[in-house]
């Protein structure tokens, strides 16, 4: 085995992945090449560290909730895609198919309605900057708030503050809406009805996907009011929202 061949094996394989022939050839080469031996030891050390990282698996909380949300969106958004022509013929032959997905009437209308709502939100964009630390503090009370994508922080003019209410966060948001602590650029009644419908439905909101067109977008319209609310929550030790 040449140095180049040995280094490719060293760089790309993990212990136990090499064939018997490769292992023998590599061992033989390492016996006569100090540099490749050093590279081999480095690679072993790196492999150990990566293996330790691989061993920690991300934890999916509430897997059943994710399944439910997928199935709900599938029911609502893509019923027309199923079944295939072959499946449809089979269904007709069977007369009925309890498992087949039925079209969800009115979905298109609701998507248009939300698109219009989104357009309305754009008109009422907040024209001021929210302090990042206060927004972070609000997150402690409401749960996760994202602006755009994974990062959140300063809400600049022209941005929409998106609240993705789930679980406890949804309940808190609902409570704030009821008490008038949070106002939205949407018709408050409409937002309330939407949140109520989510809180009545056991489990996950109708859609969490940003691509589904159903993500609720709420705009904090009154800067002074929301800051006052945050200050109030902070001074009351974080329990005020649960009163």
């Amino acid at each position, binding site marked *: 085995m040449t140095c180049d061949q040995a280094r490719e094996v060293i*760089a*790309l394989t993990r212990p136990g992945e090499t064939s018997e022939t490769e292992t023998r050839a590599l061992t033989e080469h390492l016996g006569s090449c100090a540099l490749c031996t050093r590279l081999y030891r*480095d690679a072993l050390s*790196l492999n150990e*560290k*990566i293996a330790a*990282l*691989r061993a*920690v*698996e*991300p*934890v*999916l*909380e509430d*897997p059943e909730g*994710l*399944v439910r949300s*997928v*199935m709900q*969106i*599938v*029911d609502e958004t*893509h019923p027309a*895609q*199923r*079944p*295939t022509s*072959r*499946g*449809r013929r*089979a*269904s007709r032959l069977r007369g009925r*198919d309890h*498992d*087949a*997905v039925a079209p969800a009437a009115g979905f298109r209308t609701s998507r248009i309605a939300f698109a219009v709502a989104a357009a309305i939100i754009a008109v009422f964009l907040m024209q001021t900057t929210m302090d*990042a*630390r206060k*927004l*972070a*503090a609000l*997150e*402690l009370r409401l749960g*996760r708030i*994202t*602006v*755009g*994508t*994974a*990062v*959140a*922080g*300063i809400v600049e003019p022209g*941005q929409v503050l998106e609240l*993705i209410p789930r679980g406890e966060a949804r309940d808190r948001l609902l409570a704030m809406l009821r008490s008038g602590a949070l106002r939205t650029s949407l018709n408050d009644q409409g937002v309330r009805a939407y949140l109520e419908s989510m809180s009545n439905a056991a489990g996950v909101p109708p859609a*969490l*996907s*940003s*691509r*589904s067109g159903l993500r609720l977008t709420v705009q904090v319209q009154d800067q002074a009011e929301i800051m006052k609310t945050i200050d109030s929550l902070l001074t009351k030790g974080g329990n005020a929202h649960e009163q």
Partner: protein
Amino acid sequence: MPFELQPDLLDRCLRGERQAFRQLVEGSQRYAFRLAFRMVWDEDEAKEIVQEAFIRVWKHLPAFDRTTRFTTWLYRIVVNLSHDTLRRRARSRDRMVPLDDARTMVADGEESTLINRDLAARVRALAEDLPPAQRTVFVLRDLQDLSIEETAEVLSMSPGAVKANLCYARRRIRERMELTEHPENEHHDV
């Protein structure tokens, strides 16, 4: 690939059986989530990616090439959606402030959240600076434990390209690890 499909599950999904599709989601969502999380290091975004991936699976299942393994296809969708997420994040980064400080303050104390947060920080510390192709190859090969050939199939790359990207990725990761362990060795430009 870790998830094995029942032989007739895809056929049943194609016939429009919701229960079959539910089984498909239940059986493969954890693997999809692990990949998405390791790609974007964020639990909520990873969940959204997985959700969107399954919606795409449902939508495009009739066009799915059955000579490809389902898991390869699913992984490919998850990787593409993860790249979209990372691109969106990069676009918005210049006008937003990361909430890292706030996240460390969150005191919900749930074990899984802590595990995820710690893992995200560790993977991010190693792989954040890698170019997308190298990072993706590293995640698929070294963290998801796919073979070179499986990684190549998911990414529609040649095995040679996978190997090259993996070599570069590992070299940079080793350098990052050394710097983390021996910060005194960091080179500073004067």
